[in-house]
Structures are given as C-alpha cells and as structure tokens.
C-alpha cells in the first residue's frame, strides 16, 4: 500500500465518477457548461466520451465505442446528422482502434445526441481517459474465409462486462483490449490481447499482456502463459482490469500502464495474483498462436465466407470524414449491402454483404472516386493521428502533411507492394509510428537558421510472424525536404522505381 499523495488527476477521478455527469448534461447545456469545474470539464466528462478540446474551446469532441469496428447505416446516419449540423466545424476521424470520433460539436449537442445514440444501440461511455478503450477485433469477423473464430460476440461480451455494474470505473491509466480471430490479427500493441491458439485440438486463445506505445517507452505484449476457452475471455478480462484497478501505479502517470505493474510484480508473481483474483481454472500455455502474417489491407473486392457475397474495402484518405460523406456512405451500405459497415485499424472502411450482381454498379458509384477500392500503394495503408488542427500536442498538421507527401511520392514513384506508413504528430505516438514499415513523427528542426516543422523517420516496423517495432532512422527532417528524403528511401530500400515520364 502506498501513501503517496494523489496527483491532481487522481484527485479529480476520485472526487466522483464522470458517469454521474450524464443526467446533468441537458440542464448544463441550458444553464451553461461554463459552470463545470476544470476537473469536470477536462477529465470527468471523458467518462461519457466527451472531450473539451483546448485547441477549439467551445467546440467539443465525442469519441464513440464501436466494438469490433462494426457500425450499421442507421447508426452512421445518426452520427452524420449530428455532424452535419456542425457545418464546416464538423468532421469525424476513423481511429486506429476501429472507432469514430466526432469533432466540432457544441455542448448543447451532447444530451440529445447521446439520447439518439442510445436509441440505435450506440454508446460513447468510458471511451476516453483512464478507461478500457474501444475493444478491437478482426474487421472481417463473421465474413472472413480465413478466420479461425468470429470475434464479434467475444468483443461484445467483454465490453458488456467491463461497462457493466461490476466493471472498472477508475483505472490508473487507459487500457487497450483486443481479440484476434484470423492469421493476420496483429494485436501486440494492446495491454491485453487474446490471440487464437489451439490446445489439444481445441481452439481458444493465448493471452498476451503489457503492450503499449508512449512518449517514454514502447513495448509489444508478452505471453502471460495461459490459454483460455472463448467463453472465458469476458470474465478473465474483467478480473484482469479489476486487478489493474486495485494494484496499478497511481503515483506516476508515465509508469502506470500495465507493463509496469507486470515488471513490478514479476511475470510469475503477476500471473499468480491475477489468477487468484480470477478464481477459475486455466491451462498453462507456451504463448504460441495462429497469427503468422501482417494484417491484410482489406481494400478492394473480396469474396466473403458466404457464397455470392462480397466485402468492398474502401480507402478513406487519412481517415477523415464529414457529415455529408457519412450520410452518403450509409446510403451506399443500404443500397448495395445489408446496411453494415466495418472500420479497420488502418482507418479504412468496408461495406459488407454485397451480392455479386451489384458489384459493377457499386464500383461505378461516383463516391468511389473519393473512397477508392484501389488506392495507390502508399495511400492504401497510410495511418495518421489527428495532427495540430485538433491536438495541441501535435507539432505538425499530420493529416494534410501526410496526404500531400504521399500524393507527391505516388506521382513520382511506382512501388511493387503496398507500404504501411504511420504518421504521428508528437512523441505520444497516437499514430503508432513504431508499427510502420516507415514511421514518421512530428518534430522541430533548424533549417536555414530558423526552427521549422519537421518529421523524424523510423524504419523497420514489422507486424508479421516475427514482429518488430520500427527504429529511429533519421532525426528531424524539415518538412520541405521530406519528399526528397522519403523518395530516396523508397528507391533504396523498398524497390520503388521512378515513373517512366519522370526518368531523365
């Protein structure tokens, strides 16, 4: 037991659970949200998924929860309608956790929007701050010809328990959970990842723990040494998070992710405590699993496990949408599929259940000129954080920079294979630069005697059978020189060739 005084953040969290603010939202909107204290405004509201944004004071963000990245047209329409009312201020980002966050909302929008969301089965609860974040799964769950197991019911069951009456409300830090169901389910960047594994012929999951990226340290999850049946995942997750809630470090936020607790207790000690809390018998396991390749891009037309049906993966440039585009996408999903869309960790989306006969018409839709099923090899797997337009930490406007650089590189070069690039605005690494074959991180550099926007370059991230984190390759390259530096890298290391008309 530690008697260290609680930090400001811990005090705010202990004062009251942010969920208690929900019944007050409507009257706060009328009376004026400026009556909220700093702690309520900047910390507690995040328990409802509502973010005060210092970069746009008065315009708020709402982060949803979309378990396994599944959303239907009716739900998307509700969100689009809310965003549409924000005009030029409104936008939505697809996140690297198969999730959506809406920007530009007024506080007055929150209570009615949450009510409408409830009516269509959506929630934004506990999606920010020290909470279990959106739980990810195989974006192709249930339609994937290659899947071992459908992750959707498992993810839902975990979410239900974690957000239920016995779930954690005051974790020491944020917590990422993911469930893998296919050979390309790379999930080792999560605090808790369940990877499909066979034991004596039975399909279950080996448990990986402690993965995370931060400004100080980056770790891939390590095997906990146990195997679980699918029906044990939810209960085990709850036990693990409650244990973390009790035992995690609350005195130093930069040492409070799960991995630090594991190191403090030792892996064996941690496992012993955890299993004692869980209370159910589990089987020891060597951590081997069925994930043996990097994630598929999912873009383009692919046959589903269901004969005669297809998913069409669409590239969303830099993962950014607005209300009108969301309405149009919902309409596409209704017209050509069964009204379902899936979000991927690469910030793209899929329309599922498209019959063979409708494919030509869908592919001829004008909207697919914007959301292409066949983007260039750099576009296809470019992942980006929000950037300085909406985040005060970002040192560069990540999305627009990435888009401009990639456009120019694709104009100059041909690449033999899609290449995964991860762009992030600062060292907090929300854009996961360590997972990219090329990773870029916003920085400052001196150029012609002035401090200018720049990017550090990381190379070598691999999400395959032998996962590796990308390592720093080049310190801050001024953005004005970035295209040239990346062009040379692609030529030297990634088999790129100059387009014929550009060869002198």
């Amino acid at each position, binding site marked *: 037991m530690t008697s260290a005084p609680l930090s400001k953040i811990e005090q705010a969290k202990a004062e009251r659970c942010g969920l208690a603010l929900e019944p007050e939202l409507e009257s706060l909107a009328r009376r004026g949200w400026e009556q909220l204290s700093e702690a309520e405004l900047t910390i507690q509201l995040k328990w409802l998924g509502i973010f005060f944004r*210092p970069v746009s004071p008065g315009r708020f963000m709402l982060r949803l929860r979309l378990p396994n990245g599944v959303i239907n047209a009716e739900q998307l329409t509700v969100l689009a309608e809310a965003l549409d009312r924000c*005009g030029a*201020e409104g936008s939505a980002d697809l996140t690297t956790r198969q999730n959506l966050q809406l920007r530009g909302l007024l506080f007055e929008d929150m209570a009615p929007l949450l009510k409408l969301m409830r009516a269509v089965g959506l929630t934004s609860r506990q999606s920010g701050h020290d909470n279990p974040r959106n739980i990810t799964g195989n974006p192709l769950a249930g339609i994937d010809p290659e899947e071992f197991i459908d992750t959707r019911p498992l993810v839902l069951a975990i979410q239900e328990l974690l957000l239920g009456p016995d779930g954690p409300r005051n974790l020491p830090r944020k917590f990422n959970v993911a469930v893998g169901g296919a050979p390309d389910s790379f999930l080792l960047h999560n605090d808790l990842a369940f990877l499909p594994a066979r034991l004596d012929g039975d399909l279950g999951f080996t448990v990986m723990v402690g993965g995370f990226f931060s400004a100080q340290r980056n770790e891939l999850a390590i095997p906990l040494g146990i195997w679980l049946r699918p029906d044990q995942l939810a209960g085990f997750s709850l036990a693990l998070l409650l244990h973390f809630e009790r035992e995690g470090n609350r005195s130093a936020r930069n040492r409070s992710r799960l991995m630090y607790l594991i190191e403090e207790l030792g892996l064996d000690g941690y496992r012993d405590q955890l299993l004692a809390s869980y209370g159910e018998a589990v089987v020891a396991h060597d951590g081997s699993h069925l994930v043996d390749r990097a994630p598929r891009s999912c873009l383009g037309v692919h046959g589903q496990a269901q004969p005669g049906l297809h998913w069409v993966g669409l590239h969303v440039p830099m993962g950014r949408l607005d209300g009108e585009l969301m309405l149009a996408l919902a309409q596409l999903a209704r017209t050509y599929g069964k009204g379902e869309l899936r979000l991927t960790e690469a910030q793209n989306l899929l329309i599922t259940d498209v019959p063979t006969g409708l494919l030509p018409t869908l592919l001829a839709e004008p909207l697919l000129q914007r959301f292409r099923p066949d983007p260039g090899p750099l576009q296809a797997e470019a992942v980006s954080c929000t950037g300085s337009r909406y985040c005060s930490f970002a040192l560069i406007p990540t999305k627009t920079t990435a888009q401009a650089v990639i456009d120019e590189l694709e104009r100059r070069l041909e690449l033999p294979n899609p290449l995964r690039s991860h762009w992030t605005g600062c060292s907090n690494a929300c854009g996961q630069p360590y997972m990219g074959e090329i990773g870029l991180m916003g920085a400052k550099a001196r150029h012609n005697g002035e401090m200018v926007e720049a990017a550090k370059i990381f190379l070598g991230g691999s999400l395959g059978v032998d996962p590796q984190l990308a390592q720093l390759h080049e310190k801050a390259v001024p953005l004005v020189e970035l295209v040239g530096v990346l062009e040379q890298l692609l030529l030297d290391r990634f088999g790129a060739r100059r387009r014929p008309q550009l060869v002198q």
Partner: protein
Amino acid sequence: MDLSPDDWLAALRAGELNLDREGLAERLAELSADQALGLLAWWLEQLLAGGLGYGLGQFADLVGRPQGVAAAVLLRQALGTAQGGSPDPALLALLLPLLGYQRDPEDFPGLQALALNPGALVLRRGALEGLARGLSCWPLGPLRQLLVQLSADLDPQLAATAMDLLARLPWAREGLSAVAARGVDPLLAPRLARRRAAAPPSDLLLLIHGRSGGVVPDELLQLAEELRQQRGCRVIVQPLTDPLAAEQALALEPAPLTLVPLFQLPGHHVRHDLPAIAAQWRLRRWPLRRLPFLGAWPRWQQELAEALGEAQAQGWRPELLHHPLGGPLAARYPQALSQRLGLPCRPWDVAAYSGERALLVPLAVAANRLSETLQRWERPPGVQVWPPLLQQLRFRRLLLEQLLLLA
C-alpha cells in the same frame, strides 16, 4: 524549459522567447488561472501592436482558453481597440469566437450586430461562430429571430450555420418552419429538410381544471394518450385540483415544454393560477412557453361557429352558457364570443332558458359541474343539451390536429 511559469511569462513579455505551439501547449498545463490570463493579455497586446503578420494568430485557440469576467473584459477591450482606425477583419474574426466562448449575455448585441452587418464575410462568420460557442447563454427570442434572418443570408455558409444553430434551440421546429416559410437558397433546401426532419417536438403540459380529488375526465386522458403516441413526446396532464401530480411532474428531467391551458373561459384560473403555474415550472428550470387559453384560439372559435351554424340550419336555437365569471375583464370574453357567433351567451340560470328548440351549449372543454348539471336537469320537451366539447368527435379531432402541428 527550466523556467518557472512566472519567469517564462516574464521572458515572453521581454521578448526573450520565441513562441511555438509545442512550447505553448506544454506550458499551458502548468499555468495558474492568473498566469493564463496574463498570457492572454500579452498575446492580445502583441496582436494589436503587430497584427496577424507575425504568425500570432495560430495561437488563438491555445491562449484563448481562460474563461471568466477578466478574460471577457480583456477581449472586449482588444476588440474595441481593433475596431478603431482601419480594422483588419481577419484579426477581429479571430477574436470573436473567443469572445463568444466567454458566454456572457452582455456580448450578444455586439455579436448580433456584427453577424448582421453587411461587412466583410470573414467577420460575419467569426461573429456567428462566437454566437455558436455561447449558444445557450444568449436571450432566446432575439437569438431565434437573428438566426431565422441569417438562414436566408446570401452567403450559403453563413445561412447554413445559422440554420444548424437554430436546429439546436428549444422549439427548433418552430424556428425552422419560419425559415422554410421565408424561403432558402435552393442549395440549402436539403439541409433544411434534414434539420426539420430531425427536430424533436416539444413536450406538452396540458393544464386542466380537473374534477374533485384530481380526477381527470376520460376525454382528456384519451387526448393525452393519442398525443403521446402520435406526437412522440411527453404529455403531462396537470389538473388544478391535484397539487401532488404537479409536484411529481416538476421533478421530471426538464426539457422544452409547451403549456396548453385547456380552458374555455378566461376565469380566475386563467388570469391568476396560470401565470403562477408557469412561473413555478420556469423556476424549476423548465424552458417553458405558454399558449393562450383554448377558448381564445381562432381555429377553435371557428369550429364552434361552424358546428353551431349547422345546428341552426337544422332548426335549433343555440344558447351559450357559462359558469359565473368574476370581474369585468373576464366578462368581456362572453360578450366577444357572443358577437363573433351572433348567439346569446350568458351564465346558466335554470329560470332563464329560452324554450322550444333551444340548444343549450355549456362552454366546457371537458365534463365539469356545469355540463353535468345540465345533463341531469329535467329539461322541458324540445330542449337539447350539448355534451362538453371534447366529448364531441369534431372538437377532439380539431384539438388533436392543432396540437400535433405545434412545433
């Protein structure tokens, strides 16, 4: 980065530091409220002295975080200074959202004037964004009026934003209907249709007299249920005879509410109880608007006129009867109704009925003492008594229609 916040501010003021977003973002978390205010003051001074040319504009969102009287004063002063001489609209437009974010009702007239002024577009848009950030703190009536007007603006972006803000106000359907009636840019018509389709109807508070012990007549219970189903909103029935029911209703989660006084006559209840009840709801933070008492609705009177005209065509001689009314003001209503319908209207007195083919019409919305007295009365042959109005299909249908049309 080893400087204390005070030293950092001092160095900034002395021109010893170059401001960049990274450094500023990190510093902001360490500043006290007073220090953040000092930073805002410094930034405003620099901005006014040097304009936007030095890249200071990029910090507006970060330094504009302080909220309160002192920050509002600083911003008003800066705007005042910036508006003098030859003002830079882009600079003003940068400050207006920050002023709106202060959410001080005092700033409404200024923002309103700038949004309406036929000046630089960037300035008008800045003013509207200021209004957006303070939306719920402005006076509702003038705000609605302003937004209805701006929804027809020639600048489609301004008009669209105004429409979107209107859709967020209480009784949004009313405001959006007004926009539709004025006509909008054809490009914005689909947007208006989307806003109108999504605008929720306000809840209804049906204020009724009620029977002894708070009993609600069946015809009113039926009306309330039909409204709930067809309008898709909460319908609260408040009988004057049941103070407990009112107390329970007041404890519900407040939402925009339309008070519908279901009274035929402007008696004591309408003139005295009704304002007191409205005040009570407002005091409990319910946004409330009042409709006139039912007997004064032109459409209601028209229906009455048509129904009684039909009766006359069948040879009946209608006589309007009401319960005793106190005071000269209340007495003017029966006179006015009598003139409008061309029929006698008087207090019920058993000794004064008019004889053969008389149709006695109690002015009662629902069953009350007068209507029951008349029903029980052993009337002479050839005299008919009308049931209370809401027990008649045509009046119930009309009232339902009117209440379904309400925003």
